[in-house]
């Protein structure tokens, strides 16, 4: 695998500016979802409404912590790519990918179990709960697709374009992970 020295820049590359703005707009979107959840909750005496089980607390929080931990390999992957270490970057992304896939699989399992317990179309709580979680899962899934694409490209070594791509995907994951924590706290807060 070849190594490419990244040019010295006085500012961030365009791709990183691009993802920063995607994060801004997606962050605003997920922020609106969270705010809507809290708004609907604030208008009810009991939240969740009678007949719907309270959300689990411990497992989702642990899961969120696990996902957040994948920011570490993603950070070092970006670090390695910028120094031209394609193989190290590949391995770090691969390690993160395994955990992210496991996370998503377990989350989907919990999601389906909740769907058996209560419906998104019987109460505003159910609607907000499943929409918020579903939106998060879609973001995780998209990140996994980005990882797969990146790993396929990195087998051919690094180029300036791919170094930026690693940085962009890494930024994206930090965003998803932090939002994952915020969304989990929002959901879990109904049990307090």
């Amino acid at each position, binding site marked *: 695998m070849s190594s490419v020295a990244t*040019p010295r*820049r*006085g*500012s961030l*590359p*365009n791709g990183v*500016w*691009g993802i920063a*703005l*995607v994060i*801004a*707009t*997606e962050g*605003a*979107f997920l*922020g*609106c*979802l969270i705010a*809507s959840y809290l*708004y*609907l909750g604030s*208008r*009810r005496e009991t939240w969740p*409404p009678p007949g719907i089980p309270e959300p689990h607390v411990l497992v989702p929080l642990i899961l969120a912590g696990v996902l957040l931990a994948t920011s570490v390999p993603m950070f070092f992957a970006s670090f390695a790519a910028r120094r031209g270490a394609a193989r190290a970057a590949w391995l770090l992304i691969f390690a993160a990918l395994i955990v992210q896939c496991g996370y998503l699989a377990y989350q989907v399992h919990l999601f389906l179990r909740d769907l058996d317990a209560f419906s*998104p*179309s*019987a*109460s*505003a*709580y*159910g*609607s*907000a709960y499943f*929409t918020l979680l579903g939106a998060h899962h879609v973001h995780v899934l998209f990140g996994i*697709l980005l990882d797969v*694409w990146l790993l396929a*490209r990195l087998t051919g070594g690094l*180029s300036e*374009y*791919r170094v930026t*791509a690693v940085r962009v995907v890494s930024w994206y994951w930090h965003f998803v992970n932090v939002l994952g924590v915020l969304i989990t706290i929002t959901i879990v807060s109904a049990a307090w």
Partner: protein
Amino acid sequence: MAIGVRTPEAQARVDRLERVWLERPGVLGWLTTTDHKRIGLLYFFTSLVFFAAGGIEALFIRSQLLVPNEKLIAPDTFDQLFTMHGLTMIFLFVIPMSTGAFGNYLLPLMIGARDMAFPRLNAFTYWAFLCSGIFIYIGLFLGKAPDAGWFNYVPLASKQFDPGVNIDFYGLGLIFNGISTTAAAINFIVTIFKLRAPGMSINRMPLFAFAFLAVSFALVFALPPLNTALVFLELDRLAGFDFFNIAAGGAPLLWQHLFWLFGHPEVYIIILPAFGIATAIIPTFTGRRMIAFPLVALAEILVAFIGFGVWVHHMFSVGLAEVTMVYFAAASLIIVIPSAIQLFAWITTMVTGKPRFQTPLLWIVGFITFFIVGGLSGIMFAAIPFDQQLTDTYFVVAHFHFVIFGAAVFPILGGMYYWFPKVTGRLYHEGVGKLSFWLTFLGTALTFFPMHIVGLLGMPRRNYTYPPNVGWQPYNVAETLGSYILTAGLLLVAANLGWSLFRGRLAGNDPWNGDTLEWSTSSPPPPYNYAVIPYVTSPYPMWDRADREEDARRLDRGDLTLEGGHETIASTVLDAELDEILHMPSESPWPILLALALSGVFALLLTGHYGSALVFVGVAAAVLGAWHWKEPQPA
């Protein structure tokens, strides 16, 4: 070629650039283009078609309201017409025309770049906009267009009270449209931050670029609340969710909050490009620099920012807590300050300069006049009792048409005249241009001013007719007459520009003695915009003659001509120091294919084929993967 090619070496460089930047000929070239100028033209003609459609809808509305108890249009068709009129003018005309057409064509030129930061994304935004527009209009042709007004309040727009697919065209079409607009806004921000010519530090950036920066940031943060509301709406309608269903603990008011959290910034998104165009035209036609340049730049940003804190003034009649309303009333009044700064700066620049009242400046004078009228009636709405008295009357319609048509569209029309020579290489007819202005000006005043009066008399908006004995008829006759005159004025604009396209006198590079960089290149500009990336030392680079003469010498030397490949430069964000050479992508089939895949997704969602929609999501993901497979390479 703009600057003189004086040596064989310079000529060889220009020839090389011609070859490198040449795109495929014919229709295929247009379908795969990444040239910001061609994309700008596509945006221009498409949004013009939608402008015509929205105009025809307005003429139907006005004709129906000419006399009491008129039966030209059935009530339910009337609902569809005013909803589509609003949707079309806001989402399919003003925004794509101002950001898509003017922004795309002019911004890279004004900042001395050869393309947008993300050329393929730029092409995608156009195709997605086109597809979303067609998507929404299919509803109209099926007789099932959205019919709950452009702000689409629930529960009226819920499945229970609007069971057809009408509202789904609205919900899904606007999500689709929002993807395009968000991507375009991100592209503008990165372009403005990173692709400016060396020396164009942030304080030397044209005010036009400041306006577009403010608009783009507003879009990045304003569209998410709308998208949230639309996702909730469609989940409620298609999957039986309960976000807005009171019986199941939902809240219709949530729609209003989310919608206006988008809707009010949207007003500034509509009008800020117009401010930008005004600040481009005024210095040129008064022959002097803008007064209070930094204040105007800050005011542009501030308007966009404060716009996010005033949304509840659209909801004063809803029954919210008084303390909430008072807060938002006060916040709404604050907007007067940045608006007035700009207004006084324009007026002072004109009064202290030597204004040449040619057609473009006339439109700006018209804009200022109508902005004052619409602005003053806007301030009145910050008074809560006044708002509660006049909400949902024609007074509101009068107010926002003075702002949105008088103040936002007039500069667009002025801008069409102003940059027509640059885009086509020919001059429009000045006499007909002035006539078209006066007709449109009179038509606008006659159409919208009487609406203040009938509004005060109590005529409600959105009603398909009115009774004969309440004294509203004379005003309605005047309004309808005005709308015909207005139409005649707009047709004259189109006729003038259409005729001049073929018969107009040749314009040369700089017919106006303009102040910004676009006037330094040839008319129309070559695909690479500038044979040599210009160096900039002031906000009025065209008035720095020595700099532009130096450009010609730099072309001789090959200093930043970048004729080696499909390249432009990136500079640092604040100081615009030369930072790196960017290898830009060239023509690509993937953007249009991605837009088509998304069209499939939305069409299948509309028709209830969720599994197939998922397949098209997969297609879209595959297209994205293929898109990014080919990397822009150094030559």
